[in-house]
């Protein structure tokens, strides 16, 4: 060791093929983390084909070094402060004009720079030609033609970077106006006097009145102001930000034209490329939305459906029998194979009542594996202990019910996460994701979200874990946080058993089960709309992030990029979420299997610490629990069934399926749930909105910084508590009021909606008046 490793940073526009280049250069050495403080991917890896290994850092994709987006600030600070030995500027050779704009800014920093003209194979295929020598001479830095995808010329690119790193470089600018250069020179000298590094870069940014620069060097502003007053430009006045941006583009268009010779001049504008033809259909005025709905349906059907292609329902209909999800083949076929069960008739192996989607099927295979493993361990451990006349030993239970159940909770999500992210990676890589934002922007903007938020939200109906992980596609940090907080409004698949159980209670409490389940989903969506408006209304910063976005050309997704993306997601989930899930599951296991006198060994859940906690603090966990407790037993308000709902809600944190399981364990089943309609709704809404399972909380922890994650947890607790309390009292009041009853409830809901519309309109008008 001893000697410092050479560090090369990759910088470039989004969609310039930077990540493809990174994957090609680093291969299996790549690993992904977060940049400090934000959830922007930080990729690091090593290039090993030169005499010495070179560390490679993939900076976030940016269009400029301005100070506004987290990506820009990260890249800028990285290059300025961490001082990589060389920066490789990845440039999309098929769109030199815009890509070189960033190059002109990178040139101004005192760092060795090599320009990689990526996708040069496409340029050649189009019959165009770029004069590399000329471009290199103009820019004053090495320029290398590469194809990251076909791995062409990567070795010579790295050799150039290696050479450049050894030489060092002093920043230079492409700005040509004499007066401007004069001003920049003066400021540069002042910066040098102060001992500031990269004086040229800082001087130009100060002339642009760049936020970061004016904050760190307020003493130099008068100098700029004075100059501007005396040297107003004829076109731009004292608007130097516009002047400099314009000068950069002017420089590029006057020089790159020489280096680029197009095959057929300007005629290409009228010719439709394949990408244009695809786009014509996918963003068509009329067909865009139906096609989008169809694509979404296919993705979610393949990932989450219990009845692929509705074969089960169709055959059930044809045979005139009721369809039952539970009869689908989710038995691992290889188990039959291994146990040499060839005698079972084929019809029984593959009954005609349908097959599950690949996601559900894989999940059941995973579940079967971990389930059998747990039972096998229990058998080998427990058998011995039970053999000498003991109850199950606590250690067996710790391994089986604590550790492995936690592991099972982590693993069971993997199949669906992988399949869903396979689709998301394809959507992103192909360029369709940007079009989704384009198509849906108008509908979502009203709620302070962008069209891209649609995918995480829709995913949330399947499972909150991939839903929360999918928020990474949202550029805006604030929007990401909001979308994560809204996630519990979308009832995930694991909550369905709770609704099914409560629907069955309808027979006793006097409501229709079908309408109940439907209303829960609807209430969730309505709540999401209300919460989104609420968050937008009460946000301190009313700034809406601009939607000035590139729509990249469509292209076939690259197998390696998609696989790398999947691998990253998987690792991220298992490491970040996995540790939280496993640890919290063990804590819950401990609380529900022991009483305060630990030495007595394991106890039934009714006698556990968890039950005691539930009895003591039940109003903390589920607001109506004491009421329901008092309702069944008047001798004390917390000795009834209420605490059982609290305890079930807590064990539901491991996985929402556990809510029903724990309720059953505590004796709350169809026929023994004595809740009135307000109790049912209140309990349902609480479970809908409250903390999702540990896996989803782990995912949120991975996507948010500590402070935002804390707010998210409080938000989930707050809305679930508030909603279930309000729901309980309003419905209780309406039900017990003679005569009026439910019509009053409808009127009340109508009044709330009307008030909401009025408030939001007023707010809008006030904003307009301000603007």
């Amino acid at each position, binding site marked *: 060791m001893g000697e410092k490793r050479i560090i090369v940073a990759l910088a470039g526009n989004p969609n310039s093929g930077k990540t493809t280049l990174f994957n090609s250069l680093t291969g299996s050495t790549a690993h992904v983390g977060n940049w400090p403080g934000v959830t922007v991917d930080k990729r690091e890896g090593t290039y090993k084909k030169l005499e010495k290994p070179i560390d490679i850092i993939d900076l976030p994709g940016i269009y400029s070094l301005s100070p506004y987006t987290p990506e820009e600030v990260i890249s800028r600070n990285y290059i300025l402060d961490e001082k990589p030995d060389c920066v490789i500027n990845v440039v999309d050779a098929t769109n030199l004009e815009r890509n070189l*704009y960033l190059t002109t800014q990178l040139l101004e920093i005192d760092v060795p720079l090599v320009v990689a003209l990526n996708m040069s194979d496409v340029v050649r295929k189009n019959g165009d030609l770029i004069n590399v020598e000329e471009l290199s001479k103009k820019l004053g830095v090495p320029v290398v033609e590469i194809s990251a995808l076909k791995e062409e010329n990567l070795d010579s690119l790295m050799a150039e970077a290696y050479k450049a790193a050894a030489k060092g470089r002093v920043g230079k600018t492409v700005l040509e106006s004499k007066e401007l250069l004069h001003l920049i020179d003066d400021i540069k000298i002042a910066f040098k006097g102060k001992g500031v590094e990269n004086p040229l870069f800082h001087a130009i940014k100060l002339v642009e009145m760049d936020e970061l620069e004016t904050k760190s060097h307020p003493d130099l502003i008068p100098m700029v102001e004075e100059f501007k007053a005396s040297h107003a430009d004829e076109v731009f006045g004292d608007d130097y*930000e*516009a002047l400099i*941006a314009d000068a950069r*583009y002017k420089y590029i268009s006057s020089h790159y034209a020489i280096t680029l010779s197009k095959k057929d001049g300007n005629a290409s504008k009228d010719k439709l490329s394949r990408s244009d033809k695809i786009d014509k259909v996918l963003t068509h005025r009329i067909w865009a939305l139906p096609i989008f709905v169809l694509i979404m349906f296919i993705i979610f059907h393949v990932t989450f459906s219990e009845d692929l292609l509705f074969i089960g329902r169709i055959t059930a209909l044809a045979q005139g029998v009721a369809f039952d999800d539970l009869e689908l083949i989710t038995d691992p076929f290889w188990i039959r194979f291994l146990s040499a069960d060839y005698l079972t008739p084929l019809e029984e192996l593959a009954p005609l009542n349908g097959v599950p989607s690949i996601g559900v099927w894989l999940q059941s295979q995973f579940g079967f594996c971990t389930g059998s493993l747990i039972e096998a361990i229990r058998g080998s451990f427990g058998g011995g202990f039970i053999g000498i006349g003991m109850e199950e030993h606590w250690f067996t239970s710790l391994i089986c019910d604590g550790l492995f159940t936690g592991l099972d909770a982590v693993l069971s999500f993997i199949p669906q996460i992988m399949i869903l992210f396979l689709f998301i990676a394809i959507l992103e890589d192909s360029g369709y994701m940007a079009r989704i934002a384009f198509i849906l922007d108008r509908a979502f903007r009203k709620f302070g979200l962008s069209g891209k938020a649609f995918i995480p939200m829709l995913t949330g109906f399947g499972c909150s874990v991939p839903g929360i992980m999918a928020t990474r596609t949202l550029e805006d940090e604030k929007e990401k946080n909001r979308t994560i907080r809204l996630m519990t409004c979308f009832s995930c698949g694991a909550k369905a058993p709770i609704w099914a159980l409560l629907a069955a209670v309808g027979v006793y409490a006097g409501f229709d089960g079908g309408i109940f389940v439907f209303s829960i989903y609807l209430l969730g969506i309505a709540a999401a709309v209300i919460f989104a408006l609420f968050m937008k209304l009460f946000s301190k910063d009313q700034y809406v992030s*601009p939607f000035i976005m590139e729509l990249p050309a469509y292209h076939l997704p690259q197998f390696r990029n998609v696989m790398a993306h999947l691998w990253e997601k998987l690792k991220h989930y298992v490491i970040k979420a996995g540790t939280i899930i496993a640890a919290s599951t063990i804590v819950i296991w401990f609380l529900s299997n022991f009483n305060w006198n630990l030495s007595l060994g394991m106890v039934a859940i009714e006698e556990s610490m968890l039950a005691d906690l539930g009895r003591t603090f039940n109003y903390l966990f589920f607001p109506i629990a004491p009421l329901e407790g008092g309702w069944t037993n008047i001798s004390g308000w917390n000795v009834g069934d209420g605490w059982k709902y609290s305890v079930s809600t807590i064990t539901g944190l491991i996985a929402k399926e556990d809510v029903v399981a724990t309720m059953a364990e505590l004796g709350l089943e169809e026929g023994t749930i004595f809740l009135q309609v307000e109790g049912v709704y209140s309990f349902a809404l609480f479970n809908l909105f409250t903390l999702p399972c540990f896996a989803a909380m782990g995912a949120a922890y991975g996507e948010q910084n500590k402070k935002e994650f804390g707010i998210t947890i409080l938000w989930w607790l707050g809305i679930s508590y508030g909603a279930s309390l309000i729901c309980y009292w309003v419905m209780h009041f309406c039900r017990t009021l003679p005569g009026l009853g439910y019509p009053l409830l409808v009127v009340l809901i109508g009044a709330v909606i009307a008030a909401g519309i009025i408030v939001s309109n007023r707010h809008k008008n006030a904003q307009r008046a301000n603007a």
Partner: protein
Amino acid sequence: MLKKLDELKKGETGLIKKVEGEGRIRRRLFDMGVTPGAEVYLRKVAPLGDPVEVTIRGYELSLRKAEACLVTVEVK
């Protein structure tokens, strides 16, 4: 004829004359190549009527009407 970019019809081309707005929105427009002198071609309007898609400096850019109205163009 001078028009705001959001008033441009589908298929029309214009030359950018002025970019208004402030702070990060304006800067973002500049960074994406929306500067005076550049040529824009209005390619498409989203199915719900907003945002719009333009061709500028050889690539496709989408922006909301609220942002497009900051840009003044001379219709060709």
